[in-house]
């Protein structure tokens, strides 16, 4: 299941986390929220993001 968790701190700062997306899909999925809520301050890519990207690249190389 694909979910987006938005955690709003007691001082109003927001953290957006995507779950269940592959590779760059997560960025596209949460972009509307990031734009709507305010100014993105920093982004941290999780291990899953890189694993998927590497696998995609390997598949592309094998098929070429």
């Amino acid at each position, binding site marked *: 299941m694909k979910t*987006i968790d*938005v955690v709003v701190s*007691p001082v109003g700062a927001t953290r957006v986390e995507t779950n269940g997306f592959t590779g760059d899909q*997560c960025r596209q999925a949460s972009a509307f929220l990031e734009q709507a809520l305010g100014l993105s301050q920093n982004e941290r890519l999780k291990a899953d993001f890189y694993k998927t990207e590497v696998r995609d690249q390997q598949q592309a190389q094998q098929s070429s």
Partner: protein
Amino acid sequence: MSHVVQIKTQVRDAAAVRAGCFRLGLDEPVEGELKLFSETVRGLGVQLRDWRYPVVFDLTTGESKYDNYQGRWGRQGRLDEFLQAYAVEKTKIEARRKGYSVAEHRLADGSIKVSLTVGGAS
């Protein structure tokens, strides 16, 4: 989980401001010229609980103006509380616009978690 983004909340949506006020039991926000202690500013004003003057949001820039005299005329915590309510309501408005289901939970540290379910199993 594949990425995490930190966002500084900017108040730009009048509907979410109204929803935030309703959530906290505040009066409806007021649009127009609003008086602070030493100046008059234009925008959408929110009268926070126990604050002498309103907080006025410029929805175009996302900036806010207020004069709480370093806490003597209104505690910062009340503004923080409003920003939290705004961000939660704005998230819910945007999620519903996309057709996503929404669930809200209050966490032990006072944070509020809004979970959006995007679609079926990937």
